[in-house]
């Protein structure tokens, strides 16, 4: 009589689970193939491409004004900032000087976008950790920014407000007042975020010392944005390579050196404060003037190659344009921050628990359309 019961040694047995493409914690259609030993993550292989749209190929057949509308669809939470990269690249190539007013408005809008994006990150990070209430708190406040956008721009998510040479249209007369009201409101409400999540013991235990990445690795992985600054990688392009009004306003580059999930969390919370500071410095001083310079209806960039880097909400966003003097770019490459950040995921989550993988993913705050492009 042989009862064949294979008692496998669990310590040596790895098994694989598919997180995604439909999974609540991947914030979109990303598929992570996770090898587990018990609850411990041994290997994470991201499988991208579920919403690959070939934007880079599409750009080769679109004029520069049209490309603006595609860059919205990359990182939809920092749509304006991606727009700005293309706009500045084109303006630099044509050597067009945009009016001061445009620079002011662009910078304010960028920072509003950054706050809105970080609010949504906070919502989903709380949710990843299991604190569902965060989601509604964050969305409640984000709604106020979207209302401001809606009034001036017309859209709420995919904005396409900037255009080479300026803006699509002028800001709404209420804009200044509403932004000031929002800043006043949000200065009061942001400490509430800390009360709900930051100070929570469970949250701190869940995030401290989890998903460690050293500064060297962060640089090597191109791990930029708030995630990189959590490791002490000074990569804030608003400081390093200023554009817009950033060289003229006073703000700090938030740096934490711990390199864990909690540091990345704190960077983003602190960045919201800094963004508010930037907006406050600019909002009262928006100069009068035209909101756009007159551009030719068909823009032809002179032959050559142009690269523009901007600080997106999740890291360095870059546009590399090679032009052959036509109305379409010969090649347009988009450097997406999320793609580089994702490449570090395996290193970050090695030997952590499944729950930590979710927390780390939340702290990287990846946006899948930006990874897939």
């Amino acid at each position: 009589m042989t009862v064949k019961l294979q008692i496998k040694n669990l310590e040596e047995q790895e098994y694989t689970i598919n997180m995604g493409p439909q999974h609540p914690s991947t914030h979109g259609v990303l598929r992570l193939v996770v090898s587990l030993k018990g609850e411990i993550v041994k290997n994470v292989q991201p499988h991208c491409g579920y919403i690959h749209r070939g934007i880079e190929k599409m750009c080769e057949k679109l004029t520069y004004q049209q490309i603006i509308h595609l860059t919205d669809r990359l990182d939809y939470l920092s749509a304006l900032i991606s727009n700005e990269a293309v706009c500045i690249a084109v303006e630099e190539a044509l050597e067009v000087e945009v009016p001061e007013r445009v620079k002011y408005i662009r910078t304010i809008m960028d920072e509003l976008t950054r706050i809105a994006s970080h609010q949504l990150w906070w919502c989903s990070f709380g949710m990843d950790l299991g604190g569902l209430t965060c989601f509604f708190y964050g969305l409640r406040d984000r709604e106020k920014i979207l209302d401001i956008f809606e009034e001036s721009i017309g859209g709420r998510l995919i904005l396409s407000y900037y255009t080479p040479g300026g803006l699509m249209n002028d800001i709404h007369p209420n804009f200044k007042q509403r932004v000031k009201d929002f800043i006043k409101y949000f200065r009061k409400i942001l400490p509430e975020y800390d009360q709900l999540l930051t100070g929570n013991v469970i949250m701190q235990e869940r995030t401290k010392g989890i998903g460690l990445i050293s500064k060297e690795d962060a640089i090597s992985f191109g791990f930029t944005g708030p995630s990189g600054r959590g490791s002490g990688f000074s990569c804030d392009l608003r400081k390093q390579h200023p554009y817009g009004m950033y060289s003229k306003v006073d703000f700090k580059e938030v740096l934490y050196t711990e390199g864990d999930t909690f540091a990345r969390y704190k960077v983003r919370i602190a960045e919201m404060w800094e963004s508010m500071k930037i907006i406050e410095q600019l909002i009262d001083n928006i100069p009068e003037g035209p909101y756009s310079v007159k551009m030719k209806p068909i823009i032809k960039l002179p032959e050559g190659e142009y690269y523009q880097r901007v600080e997106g909400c999740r890291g360095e966003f870059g546009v590399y344009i090679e032009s052959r003097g036509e109305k379409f770019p010969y090649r347009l490459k988009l450097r997406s921050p999320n793609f580089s950040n994702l490449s570090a995921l395996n290193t970050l989550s090695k030997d952590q628990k499944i729950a930590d993988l979710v927390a780390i993913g939340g702290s990287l705050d990846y946006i899948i359309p930006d990874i897939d492009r």
Partner: protein
Amino acid sequence: MPFNIYDFTSFTQWIDKSLYDSCTPFWAMIWEMSIIGVVFLAFYAVVGLYLVYAERKICGFIQCRVGPNRVGPYGFFQTIADLIKLLMKELIYIKNADKVLFNIAPFIVIITSFLAIAAIPFAKGLHAIDFDIGVFYLMAVSSMGVIGLLLAGWSSNNKYSLIGAMRSGAQIVSYELSVGLSLVTIVVLAGTMQLSQIVELQRDGWFIFKGHIPAFIAFIIFITAGIAETNRGPFDLAEAESELTAGYHTEYSGIKFAFFFLAEYMNMFIIASIAATVFWGGWMPLHFPGLENFNHFMDFIPPFIWYIGKTAVIIFIMMWFKWTFPRLRIDQLLNLEWKYLLPINLFNVLLMAFIVLKGWELF
């Protein structure tokens, strides 16, 4: 008909007597069983549904929104509509599942919570069974619910379910110790395990007041461990939706899912009932020795209202926890139990025994 809202003893005896007078013992017994069964089933369903409603309203309130408000006044019939929807939903057939266990599992979960309800004293004389070992019985019965979760997780043949089942197994088995020991603390104080007697002993003050510090510690531990045992946030690792989609009931649909759902809420109700009964005096009104007028005034509120009120408060606390705290990680969860709650609990029992032996009475 001797109906008295302050004492149901005569009422239940009257039903019993009139049944045995009117028909043969066999049929009397069948009738009695059926009546109790139907009453409990109805109670179970209504409480379960309205706990879901309460949770949605409370969570809405905490999250700055209104919650259900379309079906009926204040969305009062929303959960009933949900139940009808769940009843009509397709039961998804899983190809490679172990069908027998897959179908049995929700029933095991729901039956164990049903068994526990039988021993809870709802009001004076309103009791299905008054066991001599009431507290022990409750612990015994509640220890079986985990089998349903384990079977559900394993038989779904899904890795997420399996991880969820493992987690819930480890979690419930560990936290059972804390639940048991914190109840033992009160049993030491009361000197009995019979629930009706435990309630009766709190006539001159609830145990949480009478029991000095150890009773208070035991209450905190009981609530913590109780939340963990019912798999609710912040201890809802077994169904951690951001990690495991839905844990052990990922593959369930329709009414079988509703069973898990209902059982979760009923388990919460049971834990709250036990806490109310053992620590807060069950249906016993709030009494303080010496304050005769106050005590008399409190007696006017019917016991059933007292019982429901106390349970509701504890349930509210549990819901408050869930919607405020993030979720723990599995190793932190087990550390909390084995490294903190259990040693504190053991020490607490000793302290309580010492106090009882010394005969220190608060009042």
